[in-house]
């Protein structure tokens, strides 16, 4: 049995943070129903990356909304609102990522919903919490990365701020929302009571940086210092970083510098290794010039048998054709209404050895109105 089977989740969400939380609960067996405005549906349907669409919706939409149902309703129409409240009566979980105040105006705020269904777990994502001037600011991933200090951790010392090239604020916040909801469901099985779970993108990015912000708070407020070249972590000492070889790039994690000094014939780094952090740039430069002289494969053949922590820097072609990728069955196919197949990633969690898959695509707007009205309503 999938662990969340029999749970009903209503998703009043758009774009990524909320829908990624809905996706994970769907992966784990919940029935996730997107509540969408008639016609256009949620904004994420038209948000494409690389202008890539499949049918009426972006491939991105299918990626985030696989395995869900859609119920279309005009939340400003009283007769639709009655139906939505009926659905809320039957639901275990409701999630939304509207800006603060929007759900309350629709009479669908936590208090309203708790009156309809006292056992409901009500999950809410905002951008910055619910204060002052920030409430009205868009909770958008790049903006959160920029505000949270995150952009000063990647790239080299003399580079401008470098953002993470994926939607990390949305992703982490969706993860945290699922954690809070599942914990509240566990408590509900003992107390019988619902709960309000609140997360916001900024708090999630602060949590994401918990190691380095804690260091900052206890290090007289010192700011991160990226390595001059090949930086991979502002707070880790040499050799931690990425190095060019004669035909590609090699990533090296934390390693004993004495071993490297011998293996690469670099006796000059031994005295520097005493204080590896202070001399980081010098040591990394010496290692870089040694590694540049031979191929990635050459270095792997020396380092891997010695259990030196290193890896080839691969692109998606190399990664997705590698036997290590293929052995783990990392993809699944979803089938659109017209028979078109899309390949996508799958749930990263296995339970009792079982891999969770579903061929269900992102739903068309209102695709499940009839079925839901016949069953739940």
């Amino acid at each position: 049995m999938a662990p969340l089977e029999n749970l009903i989740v209503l998703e009043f969400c758009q774009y990524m943070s909320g829908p990624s939380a809905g996706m994970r609960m769907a992966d784990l067996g919940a029935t996730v129903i997107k509540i969408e405005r008639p016609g256009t549906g949620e904004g994420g349907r038209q948000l494409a990356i690389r202008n890539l669409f499949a049918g009426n919706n972006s491939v991105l939409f299918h990626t985030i909304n696989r395995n869900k149902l859609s119920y279309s309703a005009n939340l400003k129409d009283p007769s639709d609102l009655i139906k939505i409240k009926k659905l809320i009566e039957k639901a275990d979980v409701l999630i939304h990522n509207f800006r603060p105040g929007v759900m309350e105006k629709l009479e669908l705020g936590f208090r309203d919903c708790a009156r309809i269904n006292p056992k409901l777990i009500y999950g809410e994502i905002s951008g910055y919490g619910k204060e002052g001037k920030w409430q009205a600011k868009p909770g958008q991933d790049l903006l959160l990365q920029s505000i949270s200090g995150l952009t000063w951790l990647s790239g080299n010392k003399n580079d401008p701020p470098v953002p993470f090239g994926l939607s990390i604020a949305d992703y982490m916040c969706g993860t945290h929302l699922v954690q809070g909801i599942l914990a509240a469901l566990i408590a509900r099985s003992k107390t019988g009571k619902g709960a309000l779970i609140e997360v916001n993108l900024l708090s999630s990015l602060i949590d994401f940086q918990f190691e380095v912000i804690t260091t900052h708070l206890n290090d007289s407020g010192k700011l991160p210092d990226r390595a001059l070249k090949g930086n991979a972590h502002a707070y880790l000492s040499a050799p931690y970083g990425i190095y060019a070889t004669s035909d590609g790039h090699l990533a090296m994690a934390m390693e004993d510098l004495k071993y490297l000094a011998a293996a690469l014939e670099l006796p000059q780094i031994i005295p520097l290794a005493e204080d590896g952090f202070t001399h980081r740039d010098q040591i990394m430069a010496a290692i870089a010039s040694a590694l540049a002289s031979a191929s990635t494969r050459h270095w792997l053949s020396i380092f891997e048998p010695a259990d030196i922590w290193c890896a080839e820097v691969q692109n998606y072609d190399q990664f997705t054709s590698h036997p290590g990728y293929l052995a783990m069955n990392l993809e699944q196919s979803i089938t659109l209404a017209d028979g078109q197949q899309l390949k996508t990633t799958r749930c990263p969690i296995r339970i009792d050895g079982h891999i969770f898959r579903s061929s269900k695509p992102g739903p068309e707007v209102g695709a499940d109105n009839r079925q839901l009205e016949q069953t739940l309503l």
Partner: protein
Amino acid sequence: MNKPLEDILVIDLSQFLSGPSASLKLADLGARVIKIERPKTGDISRHMYISDVQMNGASSVFHAINRNKESYIADLKRPQDVAKILELIKKADIVMHNFRPGVMERLGLDYNTIQAIHPNVIYGEISGYGTEGPWKNKPGQDLLLQALTGMCYLSGNADMAPVAMGISLVDIATGGHLVQGLLASLIRRGVTGKGALVQVSMLESACDLQFESITCYLNDGHQLPERTLQNNANAYLGAPYGIYKTKDGYLAIAMTAVNKLGELINCQKLINYTDPAGWFTYREQIKAILGAHLSTESTHHWLAILEPADIWCAQVQSWRELLADISLKETIKTQRVVMQDGYSFETTRCPILINGQPMLSEKGTPTLGQDNEHIDDTLLADLIKEKSVNH
């Protein structure tokens, strides 16, 4: 009930970051977490991370990850210590580890063994690359996972070497997934009474982290991500998405109609880009024009124009600026925790609010083995009494 996991007991045999970051979340949500550590050195990250910032004898990073936990020393190579751990596990709801495949089997602490003595335990397991395939014995280290999974070609500009993301994000994502799987299994246990084996790997989590870009790659004829030459913030998005230098700092601009942006900032060349499809196709040209234009004035100058028009933009800040922002004082609140020896420090807090309450705890980081005596006297009292009678 103040915290949702208040009566849950977790025996955590993991070290470094992936596992311990998961048990930190469980602790913050109310669970009691007992960290099992080897004698003398303990969790390697007490000392291995060389952030050069030591706090009360351990690395700052260890404190951040392991506050709000107890520490119990056990030598898993000694049968009498393994017996104690098995006894603790019998009383636990969750047991978790992140050893390489095969280690727990050798120690007699694998799922099959545990399940035989405690059928409704939730057993969580983190590996680097899963238990199948040629990578299964590779070290599950964050940067190596970033390197192998294509992630280093997403950040930075096109003319840069591959750029690692400067946080151990694969570890953190994997820990996040483990928490999800463990909690989902506890929910199922509430219904069926049955335990579960929850397995996650850093490889699977790294794919999930990149679900948008890998899916795009798999469906557009295997085109590799192309970072833009300048101001890259997402290889898959059109202009203006990126970070731009201003006269006195940096400004981030997210998805925005280029022609509308051109009108607002009075840049004629941008006003001509009226076709939304062109914002991706001509993103290099657009970014070059926009970059040159924005560099002529201060960040505040541009914010004063763009924010009232609801353009998605923000100034790029350091932590110093973030933590000093009083308009965000609720959201950026930290917490102070205290160790048993009185040492106290400031750290971040759990990002989840429940019924309006933050999930705070004053409990600091444990020193190695600080809770052995107490745990021997309480959870293990029966076992230890039995032993002394037998001898």
